[in-house]
Every structure is written in C-alpha cells, then in structure tokens.
C-alpha cells in the first residue's frame, strides 16, 4: 500500500512541477512569439506594398500607412496610394505555398509578389520564392489571367516565365495565383 501511495505522490508531484514549469515558460515567451508572428505578417505586407521600413519601425509604419479591410473571410491591406495587397495560399508540388501579392490602384497590374512559405525542392522548385524570379511579375497584368509560358518566351503583359526543370512547382504557382486572384478580386468588387 505504501508503495502505491509513493508512486501516486511521485507522479502527482512530477506532473505539477513539470506543468508549472512549462506554464511559466509559456507565460514568459507567449507574447514574444505572438509579436514575432505579427512582425512577420506586417513586414511582408509592407514589403509587398513597397513601403520602406526598418526593423524597429515595422508596426509603427504599418499602423500609419496601411489600412486593413475585412470582407467576410478575405483580408485586404490598402496603402495610402490606393494599392492593395492580400495573402494568397495554395498547394505546391511538395507542400503548401503562401505569400503576399500587391496590386496597383487599377486592381489589374501587379506591383510585387512575395512568397512567405514554401516546401518545394530546394534549389529547384524553391526558386519560385527567389527575388530574382519574382521580380518579373512587376507590372504584369492579372486579367484575364496570368499565363505561365516556357522560360524566355513571355511576350504579352499577362505572360510570365516558368522555371525550367521545375515545371511542377511552376504549374502549381500558376494555378494557385489565378485561383486566389479570382476569389479575392471578385470579393473585393462584389
């Protein structure tokens, strides 16, 4: 009987001490972690809207220059000059791809695309997140829809290059960008 009691007491004490320690760690770090998430989103939005900022002024500049609009499940970020940005999400070849896309005031011309998360093949498909690849999207038009063509062959205002050797990831990006654009634009106008 004494043994069973000892076991129970030990388990209870250990549970309480561990639980208590962890809740303490939680209290200490939770706000910092939440702040990291907020900083990541806001700095990405500022980046996409091409508003300059430095590490310490992210929140201040965001609050001053960007307005957040919610239309049902869709969230838009508008800058003072009328440009709009929103988060896009979709399936890539290996895992989810997410990022921020910003459009000029005409809601047709792309200002910037930034990829915030992807799990594509490192060095190959993951190049869709590279600044060098994404800068071709600037001033391209999203209507009627973005068309990805073989590398080097883009001519029209709505055509962009795929990455040679990363057809899967490129196709996935094409599909998810068009899907998100269609949904967000119709919700914004409707």
């Amino acid at each position, binding site marked *: 009987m004494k043994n069973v009691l000892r076991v129970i007491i030990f388990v209870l004490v250990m549970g309480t001490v*561990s*639980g208590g320690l*962890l*809740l303490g*760690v*939680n209290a200490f770090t939770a706000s910092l972690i939440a702040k990291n998430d907020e900083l990541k989103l806001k700095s990405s939005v500022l980046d996409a809207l091409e508003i300059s900022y430095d590490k310490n002024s992210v929140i201040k500049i965001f609050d001053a220059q960007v307005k957040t609009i919610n239309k049902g499940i869709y969230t838009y970020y508008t800058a003072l000059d009328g440009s709009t940005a929103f988060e896009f999400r*979709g*399936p*890539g*070849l*290996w*895992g*989810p791809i997410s990022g921020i896309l910003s459009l000029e005031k005409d809601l047709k011309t792309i200002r910037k695309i930034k990829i915030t998360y992807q799990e594509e093949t490192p060095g190959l498909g993951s190049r869709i997140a590279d600044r060098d690849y994404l800068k071709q999207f600037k001033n391209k038009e999203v209507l009627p829809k973005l068309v990805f063509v073989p590398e080097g062959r883009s001519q029209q205002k709505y055509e962009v290059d795929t990455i040679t050797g990363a057809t*899967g990831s490129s196709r*996935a990006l094409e599909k998810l960008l068009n899907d998100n654009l269609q949904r967000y634009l119709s919700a914004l106008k409707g």
Partner: protein
Amino acid sequence: MNPTNPLVLFIASIFTHNIALVYILGMCPFIVISKNLKTATGMGLSIIFVVTLTAVINWPIYWKILVPAHAEIVSYLIFIIVIAATVQLLEMIIEKFFPPLQSSFGIFLPLITVNCIVLAVSLFMVLRKYDFIQTVFYSAGTSAGWSLAIILMAAIKEKLALVSDIPEGLRGPGITMIIAGLMALAFTGFAGIITLQ
C-alpha cells in the same frame, strides 16, 4: 482549416510524402528490425494500429481540451504520455485476452513507443491543422507508408543476403542506408501525382 481531401491525404502519405523516405523519420527500427520479412511485416502492421489509435486519441485531447484551456505548451508532454499509456494498455490487453497475438504483435509494442513516427504523426496533425477525419486518414496512410518502406527494405535485404558479397564495412547499417537512399530516389518519381495543401 485544411481543405485537403482525406483520401488524397491517405494516398499522398504513402507515396509522395512517405514519412520514412521523404521526411526521414522512424529510421531506428529500419536498421535494427528490417532483416527478416516476417518480422518487418509484423512490425509494420503493429505500427499501423498503434499510430492510428494514438492519433485518434490525441486529436480530441489537443483540440477539445488543450486549446480551449490555452495549454498548448504541454501538448508534446501529453502526447508522449498518451502514447506510452496506450502502448502499455495494449500490451496488457494482448497478454490477458489475446495470447496468440503475443508473438506476432505483442513483442513489437515496447519498441513502438520510441519510434519517432508515432509522435511525429501527432505533431504534424497539429501543425497542419487537420480535422478529425483527415487525421484518421493521415495517420493510417503515414503508418502504412512507413510499413511499406520497412517491408520493401526487409525483402530487399533478404534477397541481398543470399546473392551478394557486401564489403565488410558496409554490412548492417551501411547497406541499409544505401538501400534506403535508392528507395527514396525511386519514390521521388511519385512527386507531382498528388499535390498537398
């Protein structure tokens, strides 16, 4: 909310996102167990059962108890305790009620608790925010994928032991890794047949 179709999730976790050959998890038993096809099959089937059961138990514990209480920080601890307790319970049940299963199922149970994939499935289910049905299909598929990998590995090694002359330094863990590499390479051929959210 994750919009992936559960059936797609099931197939993807066996082929395109195989937890052993793409995420490199659950390797410890690969090196120790995969010498014999029969043992590997037994281990594989036990894993499918335990992983699915623990995922099914951990999902409501996380989403219905820990999240509303803002106690997500203890989730790893709770998960591993649930896993250990489930395995212990299964051991007792098999001993008491199903003795014939002891040799084909029971002996693997102690090793399953420390198999990375049991905890990994619970961790991924939380990370990717799967709902209950998705979790069932995901855990069943992942463990089936792992079992497939270990069964293939055992089959290859059995054949290899009969016909080849492996250099001394490569025997055992070394050749297991090389075979795993070749299998992983083959499995990358599946990429693209399914896309995951």
